[in-house]
C-alpha cells in the first residue's frame, strides 16, 4: 500500500465508514460517506508553494517604500538572521533570487506575517503597512540572474597552505 493509500485507509477507518470496501472501490463509496465532497481532487501539485498573488503590494508605487523597508529591516532585527543587506547569515539570503516560500509580494508578506516553521518568527503584531514596506525592500534586492555555476578557474584552486 502506498503512503497515500494508507492515509486514505486510515481516514476512512477513522470516519467509521466501510473501510476496506471503500479502499478497494473509493469512487463508488464517495458521495454518501463523504457528504458530497469529492475524494479525488484534481490538479494536485507535488511540493509546490502555490502562488497567492491576489492583491499586490499597495505601496509598490511609493518611491520611498524601499528605503523605509530597509530601515525597518534593521529595526525589526531581520538583519540579525538574514544578514546585512539580507545577503544571508543563519537565515537564508533574500537577495539571491531563490525563494523557499515564494517570491511574489503576497508570498513574502505571508512569510513575514505568519512566520515559517524552520525559525522565521511571525511578525503578525506589526501588520500590515510595515510588512508591505519590508516586502518592497526585499523585492528590490532580488537578482533575476541565477548564478548556478561556480568554477575553480575564477578563484585559483585550493587554498595556499
Amino acid at each position: 500500500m502506498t503512503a497515500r493509500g494508507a492515509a486514505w485507509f486510515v481516514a476512512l477507518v477513522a470516519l467509521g465508514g466501510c473501510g476496506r470496501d471503500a479502499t478497494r472501490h473509493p469512487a463508488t463509496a464517495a458521495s454518501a460517506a463523504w457528504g458530497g465532497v469529492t475524494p479525488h481532487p484534481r490538479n494536485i501539485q507535488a511540493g509546490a508553494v502555490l502562488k497567492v498573488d491576489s492583491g499586490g503590494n499597495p505601496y509598490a508605487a511609493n518611491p520611498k517604500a524601499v528605503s523605509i523597508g530597509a530601515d525597518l529591516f534593521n529595526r525589526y532585527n531581520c538583519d540579525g538572521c538574514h544578514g546585512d543587506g539580507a545577503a544571508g547569515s543563519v537565515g537564508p539570503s533574500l537577495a539571491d533570487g531563490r525563494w523557499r516560500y515564494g517570491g511574489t509580494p503576497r508570498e513574502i508578506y505571508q512569510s513575514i506575517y505568519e512566520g515559517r516553521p524552520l525559525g522565521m518568527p511571525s511578525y503578525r503584531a506589526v501588520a500590515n503597512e510595515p510588512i508591505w514596506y519590508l516586502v518592497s525592500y526585499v523585492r528590490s534586492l532580488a537578482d533575476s540572474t541565477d548564478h548556478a555555476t561556480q568554477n575553480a578557474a575564477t578563484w585559483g584552486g585550493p587554498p595556499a597552505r
Partner: protein
Amino acid sequence: MRRQLPRVLVISAAAAFAIAVLAVAGLAATGRLNAGRPSPADAAIGAHTDWAMPAGDYANTRYSALDQITTANVAGLRVEWSFATGTLRGHEGQPLVVGNTMYVVTPWPNVAYAFDLTREGYPLKWKYRPDVNPAAQGVACCDVVNRGAAYADGKIIYNLLDAETVALDASTGRQVWRTRMGDINRGESMTMAPLVIGNRAIVGGSGGEYGVRGWIAALDVATGREVWRAYNTGPDAEVRADSGFHPFYAADREPEQASRSWPAGAWKIGGATAWGWISYDPDLHLLYHGTGNPGPWNPAQRPGDNKWATSTLARDPATGALRWAYQQTPHDGWDYDGVNENILVDLSIADSVRKALVRFDRNGFAYVQDRRTGEVISATPYIHLNWATKVDLTTGRPVTVPGKQTGGAGWTRDICPSLEGGKDQGPAAYSPHTRLFYVPTNNMCMDWKVREVSYIAGTPYMGASAPYHAGPGGNRGEFMAWDPVRARKVWGIREPFPVWSGTLATAGDVVFYGTLDGWFKAVDARSGAVLWKLKIGSGIVGNPITYRGPDGRQYVAIYAGVGGDMGALIGGDVRADAPYDTRTPADVIVDLARHTSWGGMVWVFALPPRTAR
C-alpha cells in the same frame, strides 16, 4: 613504557588515583543524594580507557594516557569505521565511549545513537529521535549545533536545541526524563554539553544574541528535577552571591553589582549565557564556567561593566552559590564571550606549585589564574590583539586602547581579534608529558559599527555590524603549542582558515586536530611536525577523542560536518562568493564554501592490528 613522573600534575591524574583507591575499597554508587560530590562510580568514568566525559576528565585537559599510537607509528593510521549521522550542519562536540558502547549526539534535531563496539561494523544498539521544535533553529545564533552528551548512573544526558534537557537509559535508549529549561519564544536555546558532578547534571543556556538572561542550573540525575538555578546577571540573591562570595579583586566585592553595573533593568535581557564547557575540581569542590557576551552587541546601550557577562565564575556544585568571579572583558564591546574552557592544571610557577586554571580567552589573552581565588597570575596575548595593551595584575582589568572602543558614531576599524576571538568554542588540550597546551586559534580582525537596536522577544538583539578580515600574515588560523609557565608559543601550524575543531593530546605524544576544509591531522606534540593527515569529507568543527576498544587497540574518533559560527555562514542558501552577494565587503569567510560543504559523519581510526601490539 615507564615514564618519568611529570612535575606538573593534572587533576585527572589525581582523580584517577582516588578512583583506584575507592575501587579497591569496593565502594559502589548508592544513588542517594550526595550534595553534588562525585561518587566512586563517577570517578571511575574518568579512567583511561574510555572517553566518558565531554572533555575526557573534570579538569578539561582532553588528555588520554593511551600510548599505543605514537609519533613513530601514527603514519600507519587507517580508517576503521564510519557512520553518516543523517544530519547536516555543524558537528561540534564529540562522541562518548563508555563500556564498549559509543554514544553520538547530532546537531538539531538532536538524534542520539548508541553503537556496539564489540561487534563487527559497530551495529546500532538504539537510536533516539526526539521531537525538537524546528522553530528553535530561528534562535540559534551560530548554527544548530550540539556539543555532546554526558554519561552518569547508566544514563545519557544531553540538551535539545529547543531548551530542554533529556536523559536516556544508556542500555536501551528509553527516555527516562525530559525537563524544559527555557523558552525559545524568549530566545533561549541549549547547545552545550552537560557536566555531571555527583548526582547533579550541570547545564547552561544559549541565546546571548537574543536578549536572554544567562543562567546555569543543576538537575537531579535520577529524576530530572531542577535542584538549583543561578543567574549570571541580576540581584545577588539570584546570582547566588551570598556571604560565601569572595572575589579576588577589591572592586568586585561591591554588593548588587550584577544589577548595578547595568542601566536599570538591562540585566534582564543582558545575555551572559553559560553556553561553554564546564570544569570541576573535586578537591576544592568548585565548578568553573564562563559567561558569554553582554547584550546587545551595541555597548552604547548598556553603559557599565555589565557583570557578570564575559566573566569566569566559580560556584559550589551543590547549591550554585558563587564563590568567586572575575570579569576578563568589562563592558565588552567586541562580542568576546568568556565561555572558553577553563583547564585545571597544577603549575610550577616561581618555585611554587599553583592550583591553576588556564583559559585561552576569546579576547586574545591566555589567562593563568589561581583556581582557589580567581587571582590572575598572568595574562599574555596568545594571538595578535590590539584592543588592550595588557591586563593590570593589581586590578585584574585590561588596559584598553581608546581607538579600538566601539559604540560611537561610524566605524571602528581593524580591531583584533575579531568577534570569533583568538579562539572560539573548539577546546584546547593539555599534555602532562610535554607540559604544553595545544590550542586551535583564529587570526582575524574586524571592523565594527553600531546602530540602536530594539528588544523584540525571540529575535536577534545585536545592533552591530562586524565584517572580518585576515590578521597579520594572511593566514586566518593557526594550531599552536603553548607553554603556560613561560607564557609563550612553542610552535605553530598556520592554516588558511580559522581552526574551529577541538584538540586531543595523548601519552603517545601525538596530538590531533581538524581544519575547516576537512583535513584531520596528527601532529608531533613536541615538534609540531604533521605526521599523518586525511581529508574526511566535510569541514571539522568537532573534537577528537581516543579510547581503548574491546580488542585492546587504541582508537581515535572525530566528527566531520562543517558548521558552527563559521559553517553557518558558508552554507545553506548563502552562496557567499556569488557575484551578486550584497553583504558588506570582506565579511566572514567568503571563500570557505569553495573548499568544503555540509556533511555529518563519525570517523574512527586505528593502527592495523599488528602495528598496534
